């Protein structure tokens, strides 16, 4: 067989089993073939390295743009005054509304919608090479694909006999996604009381549930748990506390 074609098939991942065998034999017996292979492999490595550097630069660029977007968006001075006037008028008009909302209290539904985000599967990596069709794997596959009923059923089956400390949390998340708040609360409470690594996250979602249930005092109680430095969603918790006050 044409050696060049063999190398082409190798690098484009099209070697058949027979060709693979021939390829390996040639690497051992034909020094020119081995030399050509090493050269192409080096070219591949060099290009990979070059593209990695380009990607890193791109990511640094993305990050700069994100930081720029987040920094205070100062309006040019010339148009600032116009906006200031418009804002004054809006402020006067808004005072009436403000008075109304102050009496009416926060809009719990909006607060919930603004702050709720599903929690990704951060504990179980479903790899291609997984040959074991474990129940845990199936449950996380269901969770990732948005089948929260299947996920909840799966997690519940394995949680009884499993020492892993994250199942209660993911059970809580699955029920929350299904809007079954009572069950969600049970499992988040288990998470908080147990030796789980997801205590902060469970406090956060318990606060959101309390907000959904328009229970300000309970929401604040859970949010207070997250105001310590390095807590999960610390900044968001503080913001929410301000909005609830």
């Amino acid at each position, binding site marked *: 067989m044409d050696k060049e074609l063999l190398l082409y098939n190798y690098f484009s991942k099209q070697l058949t089993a027979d060709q693979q065998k021939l390829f390996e034999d040639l690497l051992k017996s034909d020094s020119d073939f081995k030399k050509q292979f090493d050269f192409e492999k080096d*070219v*591949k490595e*060099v*290009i990979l390295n070059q593209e990695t550097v380009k990607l890193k630069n*791109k990511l640094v660029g993305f990050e700069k743009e994100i930081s720029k977007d987040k920094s205070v968006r100062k309006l040019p001075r010339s148009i600032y005054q116009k906006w200031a006037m418009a804002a004054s008028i809006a402020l006067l008009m808004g005072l009436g509304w403000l008075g109304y909302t102050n009496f009416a209290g926060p809009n719990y539904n909006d607060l919930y919608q603004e702050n709720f*985000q599903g929690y990704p599967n*951060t504990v179980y990596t479903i790899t*291609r090479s997984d040959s074991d069709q474990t129940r845990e794997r199936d449950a996380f596959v269901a969770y990732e694909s948005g089948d929260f009923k299947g996920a909840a059923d799966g997690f519940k089956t394995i949680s009884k006999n499993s020492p892993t400390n994250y199942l209660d949390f993911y059970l809580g998340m699955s029920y929350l996604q299904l809007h079954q708040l009572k069950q969600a609360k049970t499992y988040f409470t288990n998470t908080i009381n147990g030796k789980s690594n997801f205590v*902060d996250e469970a406090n956060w979602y318990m606060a959101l549930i309390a907000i959904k249930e328009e229970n300000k005092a309970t929401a604040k109680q859970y949010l207070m748990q997250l105001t310590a430095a390095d807590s999960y969603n610390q900044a968001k918790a503080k913001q929410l506390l301000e909005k609830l006050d």
Partner: protein
Amino acid sequence: MENDQVEIKLEDLRTGSDTVLRKVYEENREKFLNYARRYNLSEDENIDVYQDAYIIFYDNVMSGKIERFTSSVSTYLFAIGKYLIFDLIRKNKKTVGSDFDLSRVGDDNLPTDTIEMERAELTTEQFLLQKHFTTLGTKCQELLTLFYYRGYNIQEIMAHENYNSENVVKAAKSRCMKTLRERIQENAY
């Protein structure tokens, strides 16, 4: 919910489109940083770890180590990121809070059998090869990058680069490799 992320396909990433790269970067950034903040690293370190995890993930897609997605992109990024955080903490001998369990970052089912977490640095020869590679014409660099990096076959390169026939692509590829080899030999003495 609220799971408003559009599924990213492997093929989308392979094209290397800036729009896709940025979308994936932004969609996972906050979640990852929120998660990473508990490990007492600085915000710059957190961002570095996120970017490194992203690069490792992408390298593995491009090198074919990840042939198809069996988890969401988020899960891959978190798994790699956690490994990197653990590594960084170990290297820096960072102090972590007393309520922090180090085993948490190490107890994943990391797909170490499929994902290459670290790559060897270029050898001296490879470094020289890289220097000569950058002296090739743009067309040559593009063609070789499509084949060796993006995994395009001859037919796909023909369509992508508007070549007239497969033979023209093959001939162009051979010519580029020959030029590269000659440049190395010219400078070997």
